[in-house]
């Protein structure tokens, strides 16, 4: 299975200890190169930051000043009014969407992580019939394009009577083969079989060993899965768009794009879409950037192992 080799190949190009780059070879570096490199990085940073900065500035403007004042210049401070209008619009539907997004993401990512953790743990700790088949299936399914599944999944959910329900959006997101693969790798690293055996000799049951020992030992790896699952649910768009017809159940992505569409005929919605977009970015940015250490270590780990 060549895909497996590819996956294994990924980032660790060769063995060797991790290298420190800071300061290495500074003396050989010419001033011209430093200036050119810094300029390049500054330009790139401006490109990547500008839309977000614009969004923050635009959120403080009134609906009419959004169109009449220069984009990156502050105008009258209207943020609080905008927030009030946002909260009042359509009986506070925005906060309903925000709550839905939180429910989909928090419940979804926790359940996903648990499913992945228990499966990966089983693959690492036990030798059972069908194990190899399961591993092959997990690896192969990573090549299945997920958005292509959206339409038939929708058909399936209609048949199950789960369309237009919370479960209809939640359940499909729980199937996360890559998470299983990660959990398996983490479990191999973190759960010593001797420890499992010792717990068994102490009379602990298999479920208890997993719940008290396995989960704890795997916890740092599971944070990575949790974060990616959280981001995946928070960004989920095509499936909820297909599955949900009831505005009360929609996540922020579907709700806000709906507003954006409607703002062609209802201009006052434009500024609300702007403020709503800003609010939808803030929590995920904070979560991702504060937990950077965790998922970054997950990414670097391939190289660290050396």
């Amino acid at each position, binding site marked *: 299975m060549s895909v497996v080799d*590819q996956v294994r190949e990924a980032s660790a*190009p060769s063995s060797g200890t991790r290298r420190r780059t800071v300061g*290495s070879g500074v003396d050989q570096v010419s001033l011209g190169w430093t200036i050119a490199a810094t300029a390049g990085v500054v330009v790139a940073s401006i490109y990547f930051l500008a839309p977000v900065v614009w969004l923050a500035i*635009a959120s403080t403007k009134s609906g009419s000043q959004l169109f009449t004042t220069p984009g990156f210049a502050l105008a009258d401070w209207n943020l609080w009014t905008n927030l009030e209008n946002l909260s009042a619009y359509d009986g506070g539907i925005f906060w309903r969407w925000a709550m839905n997004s939180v429910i989909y993401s928090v419940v979804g990512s926790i359940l996903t992580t648990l499913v992945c953790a228990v499966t990966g743990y089983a693959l690492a700790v036990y030798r059972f019939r069908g194990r190899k088949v399961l591993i092959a299936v997990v690896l192969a399914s990573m090549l299945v394009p997920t958005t292509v599944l959206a339409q*038939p999944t929708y058909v399936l959910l209609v048949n199950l009577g789960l369309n237009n329900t919370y479960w209809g959006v939640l359940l499909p997101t729980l199937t996360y*083969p890559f998470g299983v693969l990660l959990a398996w790798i983490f479990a191999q690293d973190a759960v010593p079989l001797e420890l499992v055996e010792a717990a068994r000799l102490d009379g602990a049951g298999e479920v208890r060993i997993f719940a008290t020992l396995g989960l704890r030992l795997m916890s740092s790896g599971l944070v990575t899965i949790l974060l990616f699952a959280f981001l995946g649910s928070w960004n989920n768009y095509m499936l909820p768009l297909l599955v949900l017809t009831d505005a009360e159940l929609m996540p922020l992505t579907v709700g806000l*794009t709906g507003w954006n569409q409607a703002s062609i005929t209802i201009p006052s919605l434009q500024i609300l879409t702007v403020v709503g977009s800003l609010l939808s970015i803030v929590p995920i940015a904070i979560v991702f950037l504060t937990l950077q250490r965790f998922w970054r270590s997950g990414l670097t780990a391939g190289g660290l192992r050396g």
Partner: protein
Amino acid sequence: MSTMPTGRTVQASRERDRPAPSDQAPALPRRRRVGGGGAAPYLFVLPFVVLFVVFMVAPIVIAIVNSTFSSQSSGLGFGGASTVFVGVQNYLRAFGDRDFLASFGRVLLYGVVQVPLMMVIAATLALLFDSALVRAKRAFQFAVFLPYAVPGVIAALLWGFFYQPSVSPLVQGLQSLGIDADLLAPGTILWSVANVGIWSYAGINMIILFSALQAVPSEVFEAARLDGAGDLRIALSIKLPMIAPAVLLTTLSTVIGTLQLFNEPQVLQSITPNISSDWTPNMAVYAASTLGRDAHLGSAMAVILGVVTLAVSLLLVRATNVREGGNGR
């Protein structure tokens, strides 16, 4: 999970250096290798297996079965529609649909430009961050990575404001310079969508390549440096080839993501008439299933898209295998 196009493959790289599970076993009592834990492992994998069968296997089967049927309304349209087996007729309709075929051409053109451009940007930034040339790396990396924390749909909304002449600081800025840019015109819209993709995903690809670069042992290029090779030379002829597997993998997942293109154009559709409802293959699937009210045709299109995506992925994997084999591994 198209928003995390590449993270998955690289994370999986830890697998590479670890001994296969069976290699660890000799240290353990023999009986544990076979079936230790009784029914527990089956109980443990059950939730995933059930979910997998219901939400991955079943949809694929449903799509294939559905694509061979068609609902035909009975005469006056009152008696409700009946579903009849039509064989490959839906596929013939899909292949006969010029717009559907054109959508594949569109994502091909998009991919040919956007994928290399983004990889060059990501690799250049990764090499710069890996070099000693740039100070305040953390702050700059934060800036480059921030868009990854912005949901793809919101990123499209955001850039949508930058493309609409009435609010766009970009269009207004260009106008003040005397340039009359229409970023939503038929000829430019493809690149405006591509820009959203680059903005969203260059950061995560940069991080992955940067992680791979950090793992290149310094001895490898210290020798070259002693021989008088410059930083640029070292970056291009030593560092880049050494992270080739990571580059190929990020490219692979970006290509897969491109074929699935949906969120960004679907959102931008509301601000321009130049994005049709079947602008990309995935949008055509969506449009046929919802607007066209023909889920059967939609299923056939989904199957076609799935097969094309799978074929392209396998071709890429094969091509990279061949190339690496050629390097005498």
